[in-house]
């Protein structure tokens, strides 16, 4: 007789509410945060040294796995850390592919087909989170922006006021808002470049979300984009600082009323780069900033007359101010 063993890997997710767990505290210092000593499984009060918890269960990971490990088998038996905060109560069971011979029935199909629909109510939300992560990855956004975007999306999704709109459009708009809220705004065109949604639709969803969540965002300024545009163009720090100064002075002196800050920034970069050794054409700057080169030309014409006042005092001119190109 042959005993055939088959292994199914079954993942069970359990949502745990952290705030109602019984919390151990030192009897003398109820406010002190206990320090964990993992070797003995103790929890020690830092104020008086009393060992409060004894032999508590270690909730850290069971195995340390490294990315360069060739082992295809992940020995961890608890799986990925789910995201109960966002995925709204993750009590699901998923059945993985069988590995042994008895996991297949007579036709070669696997018994226990497919992982059952997991959390169908939040399938759309999980999809959106995946999309957000993909978009953010394309422009190398840090994790905090992605987290903020996820939170915004969850709030909008739960509110249901924008239910008819495409989830991707809402996700793109949330990404835009998150970048703005973190103080590192991305232009609509930059978000457009990593999303399949048109700028018009992202703009519409943006306004709708601000209204639905009753928040507002700060106005964009020219300085927010300088470091990104200049490094994409390969301009040295001196030129970047000069361009920042030029743009700021131009706005202060109100030389460019009604012009979008992106256009003013692009024109300032053009002026600074043309005055330095690292010259860039309007077309190149237009490509990076997402503005048309005629727009740069228009804004440049407005700031050109006051060019000597706009440069910082300590700027080293490769091309003197009077030799700057006049368009």
């Amino acid at each position: 007789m042959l005993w055939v063993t088959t292994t199914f890997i079954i993942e069970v997710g359990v949502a745990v509410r952290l705030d109602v767990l019984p919390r151990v505290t030192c009897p003398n210092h109820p406010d002190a945060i206990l320090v964990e000593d993992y070797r003995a499984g103790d929890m020690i009060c830092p104020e008086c040294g009393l060992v409060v918890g004894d032999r508590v269960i270690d909730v850290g990971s069971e195995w340390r796995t490294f990315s360069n490990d060739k082992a295809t088998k992940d020995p961890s038996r608890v799986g990925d850390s789910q995201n109960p905060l966002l995925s709204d109560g993750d009590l699901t069971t998923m059945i993985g592919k069988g590995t042994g011979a008895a996991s297949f029935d007579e036709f070669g199909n696997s018994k226990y087909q497919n992982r059952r629909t997991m959390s169908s109510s939040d399938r759309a939300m999980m999809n959106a989170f995946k999309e957000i992560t993909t978009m953010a990855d394309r422009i190398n956004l840090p994790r905090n922006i992605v987290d903020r975007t996820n939170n915004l999306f969850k709030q909008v999704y739960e509110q249901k006021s924008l239910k008819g709109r495409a989830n991707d459009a809402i996700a793109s708009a949330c990404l835009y808002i998150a970048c703005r809220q973190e103080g590192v705004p991305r232009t609509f065109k930059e978000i457009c470049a990593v999303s399949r949604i048109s700028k018009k639709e992202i703009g519409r969803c943006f306004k709708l979300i601000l209204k639905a969540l009753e928040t507002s965002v700060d106005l964009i300024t020219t300085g927010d984009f300088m470091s990104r545009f200049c490094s994409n163009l390969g301009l040295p720090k001196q030129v970047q600082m000069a361009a920042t100064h030029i743009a700021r002075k131009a706005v202060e002196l109100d030389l460019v009323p009604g012009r979008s800050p992106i256009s003013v920034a692009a024109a300032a970069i053009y002026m600074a780069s043309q005055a330095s050794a690292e010259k860039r054409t309007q077309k190149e700057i237009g490509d990076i900033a997402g503005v048309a080169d005629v727009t740069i030309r228009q804004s440049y014409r407005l700031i050109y007359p006051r060019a000597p006042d706009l440069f910082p005092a300590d700027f080293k001119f490769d091309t003197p101010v009077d030799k700057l190109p006049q368009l």
Partner: protein
Amino acid sequence: MDQNNSLPPYAQGLASPQGAMTPGIPIFSPMMPYGTGLTPQPVQSTSSLSILEEQQRQQQQQQQQQQQQQQQQQQQQAAQQSTSQQATQGTSGQTPQLFHSQTLTTAPLPGTTPLYPSPMTPMTPITPATPASESSGIVPQLQNIVSTVNLGCKLDLKTIALRARNAEYNPKRFAAVIMRIREPRTTALIFSSGKMVCTGAKSEEQSRLAARKYARVVQKLGFPAKFLDFKIQNMVGSCDVKFPIRLEGLVLTHQQFSSYEPELFPGLIYRMIKPRIVLLIFVSGKVVLTGAKVRAEIYEAFENIYPILKGFRKTT
């Protein structure tokens, strides 16, 4: 403020029926407080508005009284003794076609009870106007009126398109006949259900006249067209405050009403709540007002926004 007797000297010359024809007339026309036979209007809360705005509104009301034609009901005029100085929304909806800029009827209408009451008529107390808050003296000009009317019968768009002049009909693109007339210069969308949308007129009367012309065209083509439920759906006005505006400052202080995204649109979109009007405010000082159902809403909205804009005037 003098309640009953002599008008302030600067307004003596204005105490006449034709003193106020357009809302832009110099504001100090205290004939208004004397209750020139105003119809009791549906009360709107005017406590937040300045007296001069009230006076302006009353000027408009007076305009209506003077220009009323016989179709105005006698009962309403009989009840005009009360000197309530409330908003005009009620009557202005009835007589949109009376805002002629040219014709002035100065004679008192037959059947009206005396418009200029004795000093005995009770007056509602008016909050004294702060002398600094002048009304702007700028009148928004109407640029576009959109109105709808029901012709009351089903129409065959193909025959209309074939037989009428200046009509285009492309059912694959849009399910209505687009007809244009030259005087007043307007465009109409005529649907097969018999409903019609008329756009492009510059005044309420012109819009009604144009809609009637279109209805007559349809009638001449053989359909039993009527003219039911003419209603003005939207009015657009524009004006210039003549000074540049700091939009960044405005969006900071009026965050819950304003939306300013230079990447999306160069103007600031201000959604006023009290008359529900959307204003597009530009750096140059030009202002576009839209979303009004009656002319008075546009004027009121502009009078509301003007002091705010003055506060954000660019100093350089």
